[in-house]
């Protein structure tokens, strides 16, 4: 699959500048003014608010199966979540989820 080169470079450029400005914001431009407490509270939730919505449709309706729910991918996703929540570590979750995915896909290809 080819991604349009102009789009990719535009994304990279804007993302690089935008990310830098976010990181530089208070340190460089805004100075020693405290953030309003409600803003701090909302900011803390950004990763858990954005990533699940990004991933949920892919888990239920994967591109690779043309949108058909795939038991193997679903099981791999649930395993990843369970291991991540139990161990509180990212890497064991990735390893466990990938293992279920790869083994499951091999088995279903055979069976």
């Amino acid at each position, binding site marked *: 699959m080819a991604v349009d080169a102009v789009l990719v470079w535009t994304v990279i450029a804007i*993302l690089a500048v935008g990310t830098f400005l976010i990181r530089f914001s208070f340190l460089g431009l805004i100075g020693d003014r405290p953030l309003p407490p409600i803003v701090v509270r909302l900011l803390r939730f950004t990763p858990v608010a954005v990533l699940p919505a990004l991933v949920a449709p892919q888990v239920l309706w994967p591109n690779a199966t043309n949108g058909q729910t795939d038991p193997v991918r679903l099981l791999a996703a649930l395993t990843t979540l369970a291991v991540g929540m139990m161990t509180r570590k*990212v890497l064991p979750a*990735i390893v466990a989820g990938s293992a279920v995915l790869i083994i499951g896909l091999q088995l279903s*290809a055979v069976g």
Partner: protein
Amino acid sequence: MFVVVPFGLLFGVVAMDAGLTLTQTMGMTMLVIAGAAQFTALQMMVDNAGLWLIIAAALAVNLRMAMYSAALVPHLGKAPLWQRALIAYMNFDQTYAVASIAYEQNSEWPVERKVTFFFGVATPIVPTWIAATLVGALIGKSIPTDLGIDFILPITFIALVGPMLRTVPQMIAASVSVAVGLILSGLPSGMGLLIAAACAMAAGAAAEIWQEKRSATWQ
């Protein structure tokens, strides 16, 4: 710090699989240096989302770093501008976590020492991240595609979120995010994501406020 090795490898593999060139993959990893946002941008490009939706979603993932930036001001705010700019470029999860703990424990350090400490933490991490991405991108081509590599990206996101679900408000935020994201998945790619994220942040913050009020009354 060693989390950047597998993460960089994975980004290299997934980016090449998504159709980026080697130059694009490396350019992104060096200029953006923000793993979760890079993965987000990739996923949205694969989904054929429009430019501004890709940018909005990836930057939303990075918004937490505004918090890091604010938290470093009391310690580094008096450093020269060029040093603060360089620190900002390298101010991501791992460096922030290590530096902020050290600054809390050693708040008497003069600002020069704090700056040196930050550079000391960041200097090995940044080249490691870049090198790991390069290795991933180079070996990625030789990984067979029928292994389900399309789904490594979703697994990575879930693995990032799982350990963050430590409190009830965080679980509420994640659940709202999933529910609204699924309901609105028919909207143009990325649109539903942003609405879901806004709802989820509001729900999480509201739940947290409610929880604090309740524990205040009980005491």
